[in-house]
């Protein structure tokens, strides 16, 4: 690895970034995801934390431009130079520019450049790393197409960034390991749908099951929402509003894709819970009735999404209305007219219309085990 002359670095742990414009080659949400994941690579091995700004001056300004764009290095049309970024300092320092004449893609393909890979490289410059001559290192100057699912920062890059910033102070024994997909004891903290996909949460980890790709993708929560900590208690989606709500302790956040909606977190009392309710165990939304059910201990509440208010007559016993569910619920999911309740390593499939428990299986049944 190498650093720039005089080894410039950010003298703070909290670094801000802002995406000034978007390439038309990709969905805006996919650009945001690629950039967030790129930052997450670096934050996973350093004390650095990256906060996205939506206006004003950020430390790292990210933009797409063609040809001459007002700095020292003009872009050169398709191919050749793909992007560049400046070492940490004020003004243009830290900024990352991407050549709009390239075809930017979400995944590695033969007819475009994977934005995540290029962004991760450029942000290495933004943090103070120069080019590495180690083939295979992220900071190697040549673009190398590779599968970026489960991409891990190569050791040379880890050594480089940790020479500039302290290594992450995490005691390995305290970092929860991601359980294996087919671990018979696998349980979940929370589960939700998101734009047709299903996200399963456990500690800092996410299992992503999508109709758009085969297999299960493994991610961390911070790779999607860098400012959200892991360990959600509950989550649910209101697909008509393109909104997912996450609960942790007595607070909740609303996200739309990769964007956390402004004004969050809010206290769960805003939803109508009394202060005696400290946390939600599970939540699930029924798109047919527009009602959301919140599970706490042995009881559940019904929330009307239309009126944004808790319904009268609640809480009720879970076992009274969901026969066969005689215990607390860890996580809940709605899919094709069925509720799926998760408790430990077991999953209870419940027919909403006929109010009948129809199947009990293992929690990992979604992972093709």
């Amino acid at each position, binding site marked *: 690895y190498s650093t720039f002359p005089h080894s410039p670095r950010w003298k703070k742990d909290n670094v801000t970034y802002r995406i000034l414009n978007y390439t038309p080659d990709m969905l805006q949400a996919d650009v945001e995801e690629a950039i967030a994941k790129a930052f997450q690579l670096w934050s996973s091995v350093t004390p650095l934390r990256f906060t996205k700004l939506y206006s004003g001056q950020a430390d790292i300004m990210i933009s797409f431009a063609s040809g001459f764009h007002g700095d020292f290095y003009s872009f050169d049309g398709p*191919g050749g*130079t*793909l992007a*560049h970024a400046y070492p940490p300092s004020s003004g243009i320092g830290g900024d990352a520019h991407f050549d709009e004449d390239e075809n930017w893609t979400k995944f590695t393909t033969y007819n475009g450049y994977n934005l995540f890979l*290029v962004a991760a490289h*450029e942000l290495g*410059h933004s943090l103070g790393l*120069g080019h590495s001559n180690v083939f295979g290192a992220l900071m190697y100057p*040549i*673009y190398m197409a590779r599968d970026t699912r489960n991409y891990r920062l190569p050791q040379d890059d880890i050594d480089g960034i940790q020479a500039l910033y302290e290594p992450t102070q995490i005691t390995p024994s305290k970092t929860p390991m991601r359980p294996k997909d087919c671990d018979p004891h696998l349980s979940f903290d929370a589960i939700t749908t998101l734009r047709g996909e299903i996200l399963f949460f456990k500690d800092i980890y996410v299992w992503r099951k999508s109709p758009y790709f085969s297999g299960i993708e493994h991610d961390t929560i911070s790779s999607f929402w860098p400012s959200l900590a892991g360990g959600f208690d509950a989550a649910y989606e209101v697909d008509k509003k393109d909104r997912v709500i996450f609960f942790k302790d007595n607070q909740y956040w609303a996200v739309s894709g990769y964007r956390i909606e402004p004004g969050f977190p809010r206290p769960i009392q805003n939803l109508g819970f009394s202060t005696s309710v400290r946390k939600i165990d599970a939540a699930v939304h029924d798109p047919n009735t527009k009602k959301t059910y919140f599970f706490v201990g042995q009881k559940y509440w019904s929330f009307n999404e239309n009126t944004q208010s808790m319904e009268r007559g609640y809480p009720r016993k879970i076992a009274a209305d969901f026969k066969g569910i005689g215990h607390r619920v860890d996580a809940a999911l709605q899919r094709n007219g069925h509720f799926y309740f998760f408790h430990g390593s077991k999953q209870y499939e419940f027919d909403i219309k006929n109010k009948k428990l129809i199947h009990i299986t293992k929690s990992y049944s979604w992972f093709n085990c």
Partner: protein
Amino acid sequence: FPVVPEKEKEDIQLAKQYLENFYDFKEEKDSLFKSKNLDRMSKKIREMQSFFGLEVTGELNRRTLDMMKQPRCGIPDVRS
């Protein structure tokens, strides 16, 4: 077959631009001694070949040119 002269010119131009962009090569346009520029260019080609783990010859061979044509980051590999 030998490289056609036009193609050779293009390759040399591409190499010059590449070395200017990424290896701090500066061609002296008014130099009376053409060989001086060639020496400087050869030195920079060596530097580039060494960085990428290519055989260090100082000559603009096929492998070196192929490497120069790869898509890459616009930040120089060496600085003045």
